């Protein structure tokens, strides 16, 4: 029988580094040159299948801009199994910002969280400001996964999510199985599922309007 896991993945990073673009590439294999800051799409899911038929479903939380004025809600980090912290290789300041987010995650998130540092916009390497050596060294020191990607060409995108998926069940056995905590699908939840509840007889179905 194949195993199924579900994980909460959060994105962090400075504005315009390409967080939403990475998700869009990963989930829909699309790219948009003139994206606006994130509106209306901050919750997506995508499944990856590993070589041993294990499937990993990512429940992906994009920041929705709440981080811009240091107003990210604790809910965002809560029960996150993994985080992709993105910087833009053509902007050295964005790596500084990524370091700040990583410190924040180490302080606020679950200690077992898997963190991947991701240098995006690899297609613009002619304008590179952040060297691979610098980023890799930092990632090694902090025990983070590290890679470079281009949401535009798709290079490295599926790879980073697959690498995270491979790392996950092993680093946090049991705890991350579908059904444990909020990362479980609704049917597997230990608590009550409001969406599935039947409405009382005689009342119109709450959702059919």
């Amino acid at each position, binding site marked *: 029988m194949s195993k199924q896991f579900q994980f909460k993945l959060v994105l962090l990073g400075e504005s315009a580094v390409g967080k939403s673009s990475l998700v*869009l590439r990963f989930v*829909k294999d699309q790219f*948009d040159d003139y*994206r*606006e800051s*994130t*509106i*209306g*799409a*901050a*919750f*997506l899911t995508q499944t990856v299948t590993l070589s041993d038929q294990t499937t990993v479903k990512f429940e992906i939380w994009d920041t*929705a*801009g*709440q981080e*811009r*004025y*240091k*107003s990210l*809600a*604790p*809910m*965002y980090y*809560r029960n996150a199994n993994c985080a992709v912290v993105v910087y833009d290789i053509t902007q050295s300041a964005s790596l500084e910002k990524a370091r700040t987010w990583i410190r924040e995650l180490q302080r606020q998130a679950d200690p077992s969280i898997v963190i991947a540092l991701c240098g995006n916009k690899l297609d613009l390497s002619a304008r590179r400001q952040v060297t691979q050596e610098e980023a890799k060294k930092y990632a090694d020191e902090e025990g983070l996964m590290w890679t470079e990607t281009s949401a535009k060409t798709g290079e490295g995108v599926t790879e980073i999510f697959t690498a995270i998926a491979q790392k996950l069940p092993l680093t946090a056995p049991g705890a991350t199985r579908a059904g444990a*905590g*909020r990362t479980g699908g609704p049917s597997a*939840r*230990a*608590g*009550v*599922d*409001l*969406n599935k*509840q039947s*409405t*009382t007889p005689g009342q119109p179905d*709450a*959702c059919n*309007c």
Partner: protein
Amino acid sequence: MDEEYDVVVLGTGLTECILSGLLSVEGKKVLHMDRNDYYGGDSASLNLTQLYRKFRPNQTPPTELGRDRDYAVDLVPKFIIASGELTKILVHTDVTRYLEFKQIAGSFVYRDGKISKVPSTEMEAVRSPLMGLFEKRRAKKFFEFLQSWRDEDPSTHQGINLDRDSMKTVYEKFGLEPGTQDFIGHAMALYLDDDYITKPARPTYDRIILYTSSMARYGKSPYIYPLYGLGELPQSFARLSAIYGGTYMLDKPIEAIVTDDDGKFVGVTSAGETVKAKQVIGDPSYFGAGQEGGKVRVLEEGKVVRAICFLNHPIPGTEDSDSCQIIIPQNQVNRRNDIYIAMVSHTHNVCAKDIYVAIVSTIVETSTPELEIAPGLSLLGPIYDKFVDITPLYTPTSSGEADNIFITRSYDATSHFETVVEDVQDVWKRVTGKDLVLKKREVEVQG
């Protein structure tokens, strides 16, 4: 901050966050600010550090309470009625995807010095010590009457007109004893006092039906509760608002509400800068509540006393429930208003293992509020620690339509969120001029 907004929202309490979320979904450009560095305002759930900062600024939490981050202590004791209005909003806006709920394990009522479970099934009702045998038969007839009532079918009315006859008339028709009336009116219809008895029976009928249908939904009690505390509710609506373009700024002291010569709203000043907007919505604390001088925009309607108690054990007599509500009807303790106990614990991820957090509350009737909750405190057994809060309840002096300043109400003493939703609906109507109609949110749209 030279951008102009449609609406500035002040305070991230649940009422404000629901309004902010719904307005952003409607396409309004919303700026949402809070003077605190955390979400939730008066309806926040605090970790230990925040709790101590609020109640005992000169002390640090004792280490034996465990990790700071394991705590989410509600400031306002409320539960969600399973079939109630808040549940509808949660489902319609799809914020349920950010939340996980558990049942509250039991609902109890105090009677003649003891607490008994409010029956959740017919079996429990038959065994319940709350009524004698003959009274049980009378009560059964009463509940059958309510359950079979159809507005359009006079044969189900048994001569009663719910819109004209008082609840007193209905109780008398079925010959129910005062103790049973207490139980029905307070533990089921959730009235805080006895004023309802002389009023038309319809609202009481509605409340009992709400209670019984909520009870039937999950079985143990009519209530559900979000894991990690009630503070998750405002956060989830804030996220909804942000996803639809709402801008969030915490930790922003608000210095002034700026108005023009006619007294109409212009903008709000924070850190010396004024942000302009067409309308402002905010909780009473941003509009002079508790302050001397300035324009009177809110009035105090009374006070609530709330004692947050940490226990090392479940509440005695509750079958070791990991969570419960206990209602002490006013008649039982010679008061005008009921005393409530709301208890949650580790099961709800709101405190360390083996800690139980019970909040005892009531509407203040005397000059010694802490004494008033003594009957509730005495049911808890040994109390490890207690934080007492006496909070004024504010209500706006005007609807806001004249000056574009819309003020919400304080969180009242009821044990649930129905009145919070009423306030949301009321403010929505004042702000938009339209009734709040809930539409199911569109599926994710990119870009």
